């Protein structure tokens, strides 16, 4: 009849949590605005990477200042969380897909992470539409 409120029921979350230390890398790609959403789609469709996001930013550099640009370059950032084994492959893919090798295009960096939890998808939900590939 009376619900027991103390002590609170202990919930075993051991199996639901990611390991204490995981081998993941965070890849951040800064590119001219307009490319971000296409890169996200390509990451998902061609590489199966869904743990990624895109947002806007403004960029300034010594090159743009030297050319007396008195406005900020509009940029987009794609941030992708990937497993360490695939980090180099995804780094190369993003480098080429984002056109980083062009002058004033941006840059791509990769960081080591201590602990990460990638985006989990429902079992019934495929990571991408296989018919599109």
């Amino acid at each position, binding site marked *: 009849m009376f619900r027991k409120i103390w002590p609170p029921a202990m919930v075993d979350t051991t199996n639901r949590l990611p390991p204490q230390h995981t081998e993941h890398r965070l890849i951040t790609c800064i590119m001219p605005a307009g490319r971000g959403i296409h890169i996200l789609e390509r990451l998902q469709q061609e590489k199966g990477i869904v743990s990624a996001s895109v947002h806007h*930013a*403004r*960029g300034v550099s010594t090159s743009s200042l030297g050319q007396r640009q008195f406005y900020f370059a509009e940029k987009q950032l794609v941030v992708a969380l990937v497993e360490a084994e695939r980090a180099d492959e995804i780094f190369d893919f993003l480098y080429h897909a984002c056109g980083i090798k062009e002058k004033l295009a941006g840059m791509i*960096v*990769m960081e080591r992470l201590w602990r990460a939890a990638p985006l989990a998808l429902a079992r019934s939900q495929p990571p991408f539409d296989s018919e599109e590939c």
Partner: protein
Amino acid sequence: MKGREEIIVLTDAMLITCVVQRGAGQTVVDAAMEAGAQGATVFYAQGTGVRDKRLGVLGVTITAEKEVVLIAVPSDQADHIFERMYLAAKLDTPGMGMMYMSPLEKMATYVPQDLAARYGRHD
């Protein structure tokens, strides 16, 4: 399969991230550029924390709107640029923001051909 040209990868770099109140980002960028940084990326964010209870007058003087400054710098200049940014952002004042520096495993950007040829290849 189409072959791809190899990527010139830079190592020994740090990524400095500085979170400041909206409007203070440009000051931090200017200080970093003066200290030797080659570029910066700035975006907006919203912050939360103990400001609601502890800082400012009734918590209203600390704006929740933030600017985040990202700067990739060579490792040997990182501390100098970090300190200049810290002072410019007045981060020793409570509630002004925070910053951190993390090592980059690698980075890549546009490298002019003459520069790449001058420094050669390091395996």
